[in-house]
């Protein structure tokens, strides 16, 4: 297997218009790629539905011996949290379809580097498309929530509004953490183990399934120090009227993570592009 080192070259200059077209075409490709395997996507919907139904059963069973609230949450909130958490994380926390890691391993990254838009922009655009493509999950998730009687309305109109804003921030945090993770593949090539740890820690610490409010204090402190909670827990907590530290604080922490992670990504990428090894020819 021959390997070729690409010198980092400045991307050729293009007008804003053609750049926009290039980006939007990446978004489109991101939307279409998952649907190339229709059965897989379609079978993914019942998967979410089953999971939501499972958690509603488990929460009700766990609450059965306890009247009222535990850690400030009643059974209705716990089930509602599971419905929304699984739906939101099912849409936002997509595992990358064409991850940088797998493209580095298969040598396709060479093709990506010849495109007129930067790798990070390409990736974000593609992933945005993938998230748009997974939007039907929302209908499935909320529909199942209605069926199992677990969909509580937001505590107030304001909570609903801030929830929407926070979701946008959560999308950015989620994509940036995934990208930062993927960029490490320029150093490690084989990332199976790290990836698995990443996905697992993300699921747990993001509060996708288990609200952070059930955790003992020290574990909550760990979760708060990590970016993952900003990608799922924050919008959900806002929805259920208990934003960590109040709404402005909660949104501020999310914004801070976007800045920090965005900066980290471009820094890591600026180091990584000097190390790119394109496998095969």
């Amino acid at each position, binding site marked *: 297997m021959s390997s070729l080192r690409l010198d980092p070259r400045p991307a050729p200059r293009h007008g804003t218009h053609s750049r926009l077209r290039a980006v939007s075409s990446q978004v489109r490709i991101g939307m279409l790629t998952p649907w190339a*395997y229709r*059965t*897989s996507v379609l*079978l*993914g919907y*019942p*998967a979410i539905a*089953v*999971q939501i139904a*499972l*958690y509603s*059963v*488990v929460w009700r*069973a*766990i609450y*059965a*011996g*306890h009247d009222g609230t*535990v*850690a400030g949450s009643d059974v209705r909130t716990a089930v509602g949290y599971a419905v929304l958490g699984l739906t939101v994380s099912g849409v936002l926390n997509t595992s990358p379809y064409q991850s940088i890691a797998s493209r580095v391993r298969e040598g396709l990254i060479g093709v990506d580097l010849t495109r007129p838009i930067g790798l990070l922009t390409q990736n974000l655009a593609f992933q945005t498309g993938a998230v748009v493509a997974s939007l039907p999950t929302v209908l499935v998730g909320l529909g199942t929530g209605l069926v199992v009687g677990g969909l509580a309305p937001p505590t107030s109109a304001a909570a609903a509004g801030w929830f929407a804003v926070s979701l946008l921030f959560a999308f950015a945090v989620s994509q940036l953490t995934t990208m930062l993770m993927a960029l490490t593949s320029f150093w490690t090539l*084989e990332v*199976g*183990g*790290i*990836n*698995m*740890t990443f996905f*697992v*820690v993300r*699921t*747990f610490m993001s509060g996708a*399934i*288990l609200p952070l409010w*059930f*955790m*003992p204090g020290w*574990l909550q402190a760990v979760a708060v120090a990590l970016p993952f909670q900003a990608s799922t827990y924050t919008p959900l907590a806002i929805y259920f009227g208990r934003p960590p530290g109040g709404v402005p604080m909660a949104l501020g922490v999310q914004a801070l993570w976007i800045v920090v992670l965005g900066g980290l990504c471009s820094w890591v990428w600026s180091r990584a592009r000097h190390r790119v090894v394109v496998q095969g020819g």
Partner: protein
Amino acid sequence: MADLTRSPARAAEAGEAIRPPSTLRQFAVLVRIGLKAATQYRANFVLTSVGAICYEAVSLAFVGVIVHAFGSIGGWGFVEVAFVYGIRSTGHALHGLLSGQLWSTESVVRRGEFDRYLLRPVDPLVQLLTRQFQVTAVGDVVFGVVVLSVTAVAAPVDWTAGRVAFLVAAVVGSAFVESAVMLALASATFRLLDASPLLSVADRVFVTFGPYPLSVLPRAVGYLLTFVLPLAYAAFFPAAILLGRTDELFVPTWLALASPAVGLLLYAGAVRLFHRQIRHYSSPGH
């Protein structure tokens, strides 16, 4: 590799009919080769094992957080719930060693790798299962055995040789129960091209319900997890028997006692099903 070719060659020299090695022997040889290949990348081997331990630790933490917040689940305290979890996770680890590669059935079929399996003189299922060594299972086994040992000692069980033997059999049976379900679902790949969402659903159910005393769930769900997706045999039934909570079983005690045998029977059935479904394989053409 040499082992596979040497014996038939020798047999041929001696003028006997060439008999391929038994399926079990083929399996052992291929696993050994896979292990050799996997340990070539030592850093990845270690990192992947650590990743697997994290995975398990997080799911134990999940249960831990719930028991911490709620005190107990349906009258089962932390030690008892953790004991169910210990049986489950050790069984799951052994299942991973045997069946971890089933997750790649989809890509094997889609990329036409399965063509090669059909051309070689080894059972295609054996080739699929030994495709690569399941490195994560090493971490899982370590984790599972530690959790099981600690919780078994802490659990209110009066250990005798017979009970220890039942525990070991139950853990092996648990592995076969889970493998049987996954194998049966993976065999749908030959018709659907991609059965990984089915595997994910089953995996979700096993992970979500696995560690809980299933007696706290609505009876209908309990029966579903006994007779449709047979999770109950994988941990809850054996644990309830060992903990002396037979009054919480929602099936006759003999059925719960037979959990290890149920696992073996189900697995044998799943292997048959897989071989039948292979007939529906159509090569993508490579």
